[in-house]
């Protein structure tokens, strides 16, 4: 069996017994299929020709009995093999799902949803089919050939040898076929995956497609992929066309050889006519299954291409190992970065970051787009590991924390809120499924989401569509925020978590957080000065380096990005607003820009 199929052995090992019992049934079913011609023979010879009418009822009963038994064995054979296939598929699916749940973020940066989907559905099914009948077919064929040839030897050694000589030809054809087919199946599976990814992405981005009326172009792209898939399938068909007829031909040549050689033997009295006829009937019996060899091999090659793609997921390196020391009591929340550098694929994104945040402090991050703010905070819950330096939580390197614990201590509100298709309640309780109703309501209230939720006809039971469909941008953000608050974390990371929320609402949220999450270390990333200002200190990032840090007032009093941005945001507001004007003056700005 091909390497890649053997590699998945651990996944079908436990279900072997279904396979074995299935094969057991297969043997009996095959044996019983010989009973019908045998009984027919008896009926003709003994009843019809020899007029032994009394035997007829018995023979007929035997025929029905054999049919029932054969049916039962056939059913058992087919069903047990399906069970073997399905149980293995079930286990494999669970195993891959488990694996996916623990793969590092960097894996998902590189991988398409559609590609993974294609592996989990189409490839897995191709593999399952091999288990569910491919093995049985091959074994059945093997049995027929072995028993057939043994039977032939018992009848006539010379003729049997004639048939046996043909077998190596068959083997050569089969092996060449398999080697040629292998790369083609690899391509077919890949093209299928590309097609799948294309459709998946298209459906996810359907709004964008429609907003630019680009449906026709997407259709063109799809047709291209669909055509490629078609072409690669036809390549396989061309190969079948090339090899299958030869496989069939070998069997047919066998018939002619047996007829010729056997005829000669009969004529030279080396064997009897009856013997030749009987021998030929065995050849007929073997010929059809043998011509199927190509299809069966095909099935196996396809399965092995699919198995390889499954194995690729299963053996993807889990870069972040789950060390599980440090089962300390709840973290206090002191976070330190010691000379941390990080990057993606060789591109430095953060350089020499040194940062100390005391437990309970709030630190704000400001920087231009792409300056590395998100990258910095994502090191704390170990979404990525730094290239050098250390990130410490409570003085302990985060790599020494148990991943599970660490992530329960650190709650992140992602820049792009992601909601699941379930109720609002379950979405908020995503990280704490056993939260009480009161807890969830409190979290929603703190995120200023309670009001809009309660206005919905079904309140907390309202279904949210995929990716939060049916909610406005700000509503999604607030649910994501509530989800983080519910975790009652020691470190809370708000990555631009209120960008789609209006200022008034944001103001309320901030006040609530200040009041109720006092002891919680908070990282705030935002572009609005009003959001950043309340922090204990503000860190300004540029090109992955910390270029300034200090309180609002300190940063305002020195030239730099912070002051520039402050001026822009409060520039002409100063016209009508005394307070703003006072702020404005304190920053020493003038109003010489803008419209």
């Amino acid at each position, binding site marked *: 069996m091909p390497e890649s199929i053997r590699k998945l052995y651990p996944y079908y090992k436990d279900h072997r017994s279904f396979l074995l019992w299935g094969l057991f049934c297969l043997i009996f079913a095959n044996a019983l299929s010989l009973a019908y011609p045998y009984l027919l023979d008896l009926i003709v010879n003994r009843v019809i020709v020899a007029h032994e009418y009394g035997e007829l009822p018995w023979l007929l009963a035997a025929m029905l009995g054999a049919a029932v038994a054969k049916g039962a064995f056939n059913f058992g054979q087919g069903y047990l093999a399906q069970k073997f296939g399905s149980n293995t598929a079930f286990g494999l699916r669970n195993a891959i799902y488990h694996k996916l749940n623990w793969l590092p973020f960097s894996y998902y940066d590189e991988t398409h949803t559609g590609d993974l989907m294609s592996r989990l559905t189409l490839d897995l099914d191709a593999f399952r089919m091999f288990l569910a009948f491919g093995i049985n077919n091959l074994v059945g064929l093997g049995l027929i050939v072995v028993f057939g040839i043994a039977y032939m030897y018992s009848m006539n050694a010379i003729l049997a040898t004639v048939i046996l000589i043909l077998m190596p030809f068959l083997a050569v054809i089969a092996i060449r076929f398999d080697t040629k087919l292998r790369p083609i199946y690899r391509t077919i599976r890949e093209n299928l995956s590309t097609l799948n990814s294309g459709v998946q992405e298209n459906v996810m981005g359907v709004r964008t497609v429609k907003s630019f009326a680009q449906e026709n172009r997407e259709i063109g792209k*799809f047709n291209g992929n669909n055509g490629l898939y078609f072409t690669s399938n036809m390549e396989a068909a061309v190969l079948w066309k090339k090899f299958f007829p030869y496989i069939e031909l070998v069997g047919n040549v066998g018939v002619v050889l047996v007829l010729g050689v056997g005829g000669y033997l009969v004529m030279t009295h080396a064997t009897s*006519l009856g013997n030749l006829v009987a021998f030929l009937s065995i050849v007929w019996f073997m010929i059809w299954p043998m011509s199927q060899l190509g299809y069966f091999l095909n099935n196996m090659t396809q399965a092995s291409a699919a198995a390889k793609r499954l194995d690729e997921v299963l053996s993807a390196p889990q870069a972040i190992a789950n060390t599980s020391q440090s089962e300390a009591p709840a973290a206090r929340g002191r976070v330190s970065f010691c000379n941390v550098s990080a990057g*993606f694929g060789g591109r430095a994104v953060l350089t020499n970051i040194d940062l100390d945040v005391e437990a309970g402090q709030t630190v704000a991050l400001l920087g231009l787009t792409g300056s590395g703010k998100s990258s910095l905070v994502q090191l704390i819950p170990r979404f990525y590991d730094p290239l050098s330096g250390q990130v410490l939580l409570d003085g302990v390197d985060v790599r020494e924390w148990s991943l599970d614990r660490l992530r329960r201590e650190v709650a992140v509100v992602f820049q792009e809120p992601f909601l699941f298709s379930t109720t609002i309640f379950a979405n908020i309780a995503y990280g704490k499924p056993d939260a009480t109703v009161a807890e969830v309501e409190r979290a929603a209230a703190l995120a200023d989401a309670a009001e809009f939720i309660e206005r919905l006809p079904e309140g907390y039971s309202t279904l949210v569509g995929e990716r939060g469909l049916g909610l406005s941008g700000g509503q999604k953000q607030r649910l994501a925020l509530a989800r983080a608050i519910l975790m009652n974390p020691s470190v809370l990371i708000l990555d*631009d978590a209120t*960008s789609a*929320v209006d200022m008034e609402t944001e103001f309320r949220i901030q006040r609530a957080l200040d009041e109720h999450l006092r002891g919680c270390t908070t990282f705030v990333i935002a572009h609005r000065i*009003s959001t950043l*200002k309340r922090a204990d200190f503000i860190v300004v990032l540029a090109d992955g380096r910390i270029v300034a840090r200090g309180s609002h007032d300190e940063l305002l009093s020195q030239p730099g990005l912070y002051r520039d941005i402050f001026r822009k945001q409060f520039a002409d507001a100063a016209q009508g607003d005394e307070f703003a004007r006072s702020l404005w003056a304190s920053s020493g700005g003038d109003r010489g820009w803008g419209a």
Partner: protein
Amino acid sequence: MGCVKSSQMNDRSGQTDNSNADLRSPFIYREDEALEKKFDGRQVRRLMSYLRLHPRLIVFSLVATTLGILVTLAAPYLVGKAINVAVGDKHPNTLLEYCAVLIVLYALNFFATRFRIYYTNLLGQSVIQHIREQLFHHVQFLSLKFFDERPAGSVLVRIMNDVNSMQDLFTNGVINTITNLFTLVGIIIIMLVLNWKLAILCMIVVPFMFLLSTRLTIQIRRSWQLVRLRLSRMNAHLAESIQGMRVTEAYARQAENEEFFRGVNGEYRRVFLGAQRRSIMFGPLVDLTGAIGSAVLFGYGVVELRAGLVTVGLLVAFANYLGNFWTPIAQLGQVYNQLLVAMASSERIFQYLDTAQTVADSDQAIAPETIEGRVEFRNVTFAYDSGRPALDDVSFSVTPGQTVALVGHTGAGKSTVINLLSRFYDVTDGAVLVDGQDIRSFTVESLRSRIGVVLQDTFIFTGSILDNIRFSRPGATDEEVRAAARAVHADTFIEALPQGYHTEVRERGSSLSMGQRQLLSFARALLADPRILVLDEATASIDTQTEELIQRGLARLLAGRTAFVVAHRLSTIRHADQILVFAQGKIVERGNHDSLLAARGVYRELVDAQYRMMREDSGVAVGLES
């Protein structure tokens, strides 16, 4: 439609709080609708109509297959004859002749097989390719409501898995059916000619078999439908959970999700094995009826024989034909099974194909060369779900070249205005007009290609940065793309990337920062060269510095164009010519920045919030209202 209440019970697997079953369901997927239609000839005919597209291929496949069958039937006959005539009578030369004839026949068969394999596969693959193309084409033009109602994963299943599951039927099934039917008819005719009484007797069990299998058939069909439903559900979850994996890992939610998945997975296995069990039963059933048929034949045949009504030879011949009679029936049974599997899928495919666009071009729709950009909302009321209006009697008008800012609390209906302007949905009441004409009088394509939207939810496609920006106008030159990127100051970061504009970005742009993604989709909208530019929080994740640079550049670019801006940051909206303040689906205030500030209403409140935050924290006590 609707979500499955009953099966949720299984899915919750191990929840504690029963009173809040629905509330706590880990995931809820709108169930694909179960189809309760009866097995319907029209459905089959519709399925088969796809074959009509390839008459040549069908003829070739049939000819090749028939040739193969003839050889397969002739060969044993010839061999038998050779043994009787040549071997029995010891004529070595005749034997050689027979062998030569056989070799010729087999050579013929060799080529027939080649042709058969090639043409049946070509036929099957072409039909599958065609169906998939047609389906995707249709789905692609369906309205957003369609996509709102179903998870991406379940759309994917129909286009991929459901279409694939018909492959067997079209590759071998149909051709086998035709040839088997011919063989069957041939054998029946021979048997009728030999002895019509015996022939009818043999066939008498066939109707019984059909009766017996009808019930089984119904069950098989149901269970394959169920399999498709469960598969669709499992895939919907898979697709969603893969996309949300970062959240799952961040919230250490793996254990619960794995348990949920095990439930869905197990449910799928259960229904799948159930369907298999019924399908597998079909084969033995045919075998058994075959055996009964033989028994009847011999039982009665022997009586006739003893009465001298039939000869021994006839009965023996019948016994042989009987075997040939049941083989095609058994094979037809297999194809029938394939058909049942394919039906479960094809129904789902046809259902999509029969779904009409909810937002469709009217017959008189026009595609104007260009538009001026005057926009008017006239008493627009709109509800996504009936009974919960998202916009309520909204009216406003915008002259060409104006910039309108939409502000208001989250969920007030700002994005909805934009959805209606792009005609993603049709208004429930009232009308949206562009250049004084109802937008329903334009073709959807012409309308949308005049409007450049930066959606709140940016979407970046897999591919190079260049292609991503070019998405809105595939014909744009590289230079135009670069110019658009420069206009939004995306060029600095793009050029810093390893391969610049040719850098490949992954799904959803996961290797870019949020702000960078927004810049790209901003550039994309500009490249479309729209008369109406719509920015739905297009700069929410972009720093103020860059935003200001963009604004300065845009002032020039937007001259003469109408712009809609949704934003929460003051600096983004204060220069707008017109500011519309939304609250709970209504416009509550309108004017420009200064007039609205002076009005001291809702807008003033929103603006003040920003300063209030500054004030409270810094402890400066400057009363604003005083």
